[in-house]
């Protein structure tokens, strides 16, 4: 167990280092890239359109930033086991390493993006308040969800290589169903139950409650998402552990 964590953290450190070394700005991109993203949205929605609703840029970013995290990690993790081919053929590493390193790598960069989001909120005139503390459990719950979904798709992909296309389509559908560009008030009341079954819609609503409206999040919903994610994640890890040689074969044969 200890060895796995040491391996995971060193591998992630190496990946980040390696990735940074291939550009001139190096680690600077961790900050510049999200700032460019935010600037683009600011320009379109606050300058060009002059804000349909008040605070629309803030509203949008509070939904978009958590969504982009989920989207990025799940797409990156989909073919991660296949990507570990050369390592898998040479040593007996736990298969879980491959999705885990992708999610951890994205997490490191994402934490910085959340800091930038808070800075943006401050610059926009929001006063920091006690409710911002709820951001910590919110991020933890989302991490559990990201891990669970990433492991699930990564686990299935070697059996069904065509899953890659489905994942992309699925993510697109989920994006429209997560209320990033609109508030849940627009959903007909009788369909809201279904809307919030989408864990990302639920999380995004809670991010806004915390960051924009100075409310505490819906703790029960968060607990449900967390528990559900941990169970799925645990089952995936167990399966990957039991079926290690099956995966080596699958990756070798396709």
């Amino acid at each position, binding site marked *: 167990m200890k*060895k796995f964590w040491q391996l995971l953290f060193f*591998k992630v450190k190496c990946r980040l280092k390696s990735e940074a070394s291939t550009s001139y700005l190096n680690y600077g991109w961790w900050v510049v890239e999200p700032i460019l993203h935010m600037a683009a949205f600011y320009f379109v929605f606050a300058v060009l359109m002059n804000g349909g609703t008040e605070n629309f840029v803030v509203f949008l970013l509070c939904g978009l930033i958590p969504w982009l995290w989920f989207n990025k990690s799940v797409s990156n993790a989909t073919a991660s086991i296949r990507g570990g081919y*050369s390592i*898998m053929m*040479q040593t*007996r590493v736990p298969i879980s390493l491959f999705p885990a390193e992708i999610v951890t790598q994205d997490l490191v960069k994402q934490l910085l993006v959340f800091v930038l989001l808070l800075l943006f909120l401050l610059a926009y005139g929001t006063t920091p308040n006690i409710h911002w503390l709820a951001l910590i459990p919110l991020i933890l719950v989302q991490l559990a969800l990201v891990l669970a979904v990433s492991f699930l798709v990564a686990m299935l992909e070697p059996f069904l290589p065509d899953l890659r296309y489905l994942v992309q389509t699925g993510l697109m559908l989920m994006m429209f169903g997560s209320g990033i560009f609109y508030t849940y008030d627009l959903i007909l009341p009788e369909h809201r139950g279904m809307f919030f079954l989408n864990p990302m819609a639920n999380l995004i609503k809670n991010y806004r409650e915390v960051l924009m409206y100075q409310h505490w999040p819906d703790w029960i919903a968060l607990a449900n998402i967390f528990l559900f994610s941990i169970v799925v994640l645990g089952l995936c890890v167990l399966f990957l552990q039991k079926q290690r040689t099956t995966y080596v*074969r699958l990756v070798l044969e396709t």
Partner: protein
Amino acid sequence: MQATAISVQNLGISYRKRLSLRRSEPHVVLSDVSFDLLKGETLGIIGRNGAGKSTLLRILAGILKPNRGKIAWQVQTVSLLSLNLGLDPNLSGVDNAILSALLLGFDRRQAEQSLPEIIEFSELGKAAYEPVRTYSSGMNARLGFSIAIYLQPDVLLIDEILGVGDVEFQKKSSQALQKKIYSDQTVVLVSHNATQVESLCDRVVWIEDGKAMAVGVTGEVLEQYEKCILGKR
């Protein structure tokens, strides 16, 4: 009588070759291989290209599971050493060395302890802190070999690792390997080079057409192997 480290009985492995969506045919790599690896010995595996030698090493390392037959390990750690395990061209030699050690199942402390020896043996000097992409192929091979030789598993599986780098390093590396072999290290060595096998191995397994044609003392098996190869020419 020496104790057995790994015993292999009637081992067979085949892969599924996908022909179309629903059709596939089996591709038999090994069909019937049996032998015992004894503790402390150096066992050579010879055979032509594509005979299934590397696949056999992967089974011994526990990476692949055979379709048929039995394999029993009486040891804790078995490591398959190869020259470029996870070498990332953008990282320094030092980072790559630690990463390889961790991937092979050693912990961080063990990896860092053997680091000075690895760097010294590889003769990379300051270059060890430069990215591997700036290395020549000889430097690359030297790094790979040094990583492999300084980690100490119970059983060492070596796949065509010799003959790397310039002449001088070749000499140094076979000496290092010899030293390792004469110490109580259990080694399985895959090689094309009959001279090398003759000088390093106690016993040899000869694999042909997926079967173990002969298992025994190095001189005898090599003689049969060479006769067969010459006969077919």
